[in-house]
């Protein structure tokens, strides 16, 4: 990441309402994108992230506010003058053209000479590792190859900005991870500025320099992957990004950042208070599975509880324990390697208050992607 990034794009109080809708699709959006940055718009479907991207590309018009590119307003700029490469979820390739013709399209509409185009097309094919496939028809390509063509086509005319709308959504997991690495490699090699839309939080954490978390048309948090993951700004972010346990309870006391919470099952724990919560407030306390310790590891932790193992869930490279607290709440814990776990076994667990956050209970969403797909 560049140390003193130049703001390339700036959203100023942007709002988008669709005709007849009372709730805006996007509201009060202030956002900057720095040159050379990989910025991800992350959120469940209907959260406004794609609308934001489409306003930037020029396919949607903001109903209020303005979007600036290099300090100039984009309000009067039609999409074809914005010089932004867009990669669409369904590839949006031209089925009546060969791979090379697809790649040549942005160059030929810019009036480039035929022999220069051929050289650039070869370069672009090499960049996405499709050398020699230029003559192919699109229906002779796999899904991953088509996505590479779409990527190359969005890059070949050296756009100021590359926009990607869930570009890997249609691919299976292994291919997705391979192409993530590829996109990151190309972004670094060419110093691209990318605005990337996804609902996949692990994709966002892997790729991004900064992440913007969207929910209900509003920005929930903007920050680096680490800060989003380690210090979520609210319960929505805590639940949406990464795996998290949510334990409902009531605040009994507060001392600065630290508060005492009585869980609904009766256990008392200490947590870091986020936001304006006073004694008596309903909260959700969150603790990530990997931050829960057990056995001798918990001696230094202020929260120590006796859980009972329900089951061990095997994931191949790691395992998860599903456990129940004495009061009946369940939580997921990272299983340490080499320690045998038996169902119904009594398990002393604990965590430290720094890793455990108490949020106002109303933003907690149990299953944030429940009906997203």
């Amino acid at each position: 990441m560049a140390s003193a990034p130049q703001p390339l794009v700036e959203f100023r109080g942007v709002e988008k309402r669709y005709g007849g809708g009372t709730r805006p699709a996007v509201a009060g959006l202030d956002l900057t994108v720095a040159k050379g940055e990989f910025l991800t718009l992350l959120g469940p479907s209907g959260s406004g992230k794609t609308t934001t991207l489409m306003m930037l590309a020029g396919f949607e018009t903001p109903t209020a506010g303005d979007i600036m590119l290099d300090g100039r307003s984009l309000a009067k700029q039609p999409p074809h003058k914005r010089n932004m490469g867009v990669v669409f979820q369904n590839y949006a390739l031209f089925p009546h053209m060969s791979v090379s013709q697809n790649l040549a399209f942005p160059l030929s509409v810019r009036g480039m000479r035929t022999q220069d185009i051929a050289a650039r097309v070869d370069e672009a094919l090499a960049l996405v590792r499709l050398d020699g496939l230029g003559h192919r028809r699109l229906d002779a390509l796999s899904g991953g190859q088509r996505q590479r063509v779409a990527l190359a086509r969005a890059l070949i005319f050296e756009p100021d900005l590359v926009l990607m709308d869930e570009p890997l959504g249609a691919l299976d997991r292994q291919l997705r991870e391979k192409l993530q690495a590829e996109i990151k490699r190309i972004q670094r090699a060419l110093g691209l500025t990318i605005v990337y839309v996804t609902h996949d939080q692990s994709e966002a954490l892997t790729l991004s320099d900064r992440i913007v978390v969207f929910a209900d048309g509003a920005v929930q948090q903007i920050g680096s992957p680490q800060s989003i993951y380690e210090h979520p700004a609210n319960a929505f972010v805590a639940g949406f990004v990464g795996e998290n346990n949510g334990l409902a309870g009531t605040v009994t006391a507060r001392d600065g950042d630290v508060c005492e919470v009585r869980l609904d099952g009766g256990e008392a724990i200490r947590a870091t208070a986020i936001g304006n919560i006073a004694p008596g407030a309903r909260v959700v306390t969150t603790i990530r599975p990997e931050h829960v310790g057990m056995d001798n590891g918990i001696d230094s932790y202020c929260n120590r509880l006796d859980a009972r193992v329900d089951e061990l869930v095997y994931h191949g490279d790691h395992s998860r324990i599903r456990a129940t607290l004495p009061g009946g709440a369940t939580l997921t814990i990272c299983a340490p390697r080499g320690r045998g776990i038996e169902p119904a076994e009594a398990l002393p667990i604990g965590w430290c208050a720094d890793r455990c956050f108490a949020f106002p209970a109303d933003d907690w969403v149990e299953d944030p992607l429940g009906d997203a797909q």
Partner: protein
Amino acid sequence: MTPSISVQPGSVRATRMPRRWWTFALVAPLLLFLLASFIVPVLMMLSRAVTDHELADSWPKSAAALSRWDGEGLPDDALARTVAAEMLATRQAGTLNRVANRLNYDVVGSRTLLYLTADRMAAGAPGNSLADLVRIDPRWANRTYWSAMRHAAGPLTSYYLLASLDRRIDADGNIAAVSREQAVFVDIFLRTFKISLVVALLCTMLGYPVAYLLASLPERRANPLLILVLLPFWTSALVRTTAWVVLLQTNGVVNGLLEQAGLIDAPLQLIYNRLGVYIAMTHVLLPFFILPLYGVMKGIEPSAMRAASSLGATPLTAFLKVYLPQTMPGVAAGAIIVFTLALGYYITPALVGGGADQMISGSIAFYTNQSLNWGMAAALSLLLLIPLLLMVFAGRTMARTVPA
């Protein structure tokens, strides 16, 4: 015995074969129905274009003798005697009509010549030599009549097909143009192709924007419009055409409106001419263009147009280079359907066209229903069928090279 789990290739084929027969058995009733009710009758009808059996049926001995004659000069007395005898016999049996009509198609006047000669022989005039026949009527000394008889002796003939192209075989055996007042079919064929082509072009120009509108609207609003497009389908051809008569006639609705608006002083001639034919046929055939194109346009990803504009194409360029090429299979399909259907139209031109706007199907109907010259009807149909099959073949080739 040990049970074997290995599958023999032969046994797989053995189990597949009955299944293939089953599928054939399922479509067999339809195939037989089509064969009996459509394919065989059509082929029998078309075969009349190249077969000639009237003379051979009625005058078998003369037909054999005519076939043996080399056609040079005038026939010998033996041939003349055979023809005269059978002419008299069929006249007395009341079946001379068939031969007389057939020969009259080729050489006008043959009919009266045959009847006159037969009647004179019945009255006692001798018919034992060529000289006897020439004494009855001097026209028997004209080789034209004998050549026509020789060509009509069958079993195969080029007469009908040549006549459909305004050509005939003259007395010397050469292909020659028929006289100008008889030459009509080439003109009608060319007119038929021209009208069909213009109608196909009009349908393309009028139908493309409609199909585009339908494809770009949300389904909820496109469906009522689609019903309006389909409305002409559900109206009988006669009602539709008559409605155009009401609208377009000299004192009709359109002329009335134009006059009231002060755009014209005297009524325009909108019907009973080529314009009326174009208007009515385009209206009737428009759905056949719009529907296939609509189907193709529905299959085009809207994001392709967005992608094109994000890549720097102006809306016009995006349309011309991305949208239009993808719709070409639909345009081709629709235009070919309209063109081939238009080739066969005759009711609409008959009702809203003038005398110079009749199409070849009108002539076919005339020969089939009124003059009962099925040989001509079959020959004209055969000549119409050839370009039609070429269009279908072109359409298939195009559909194979451009994926929809």
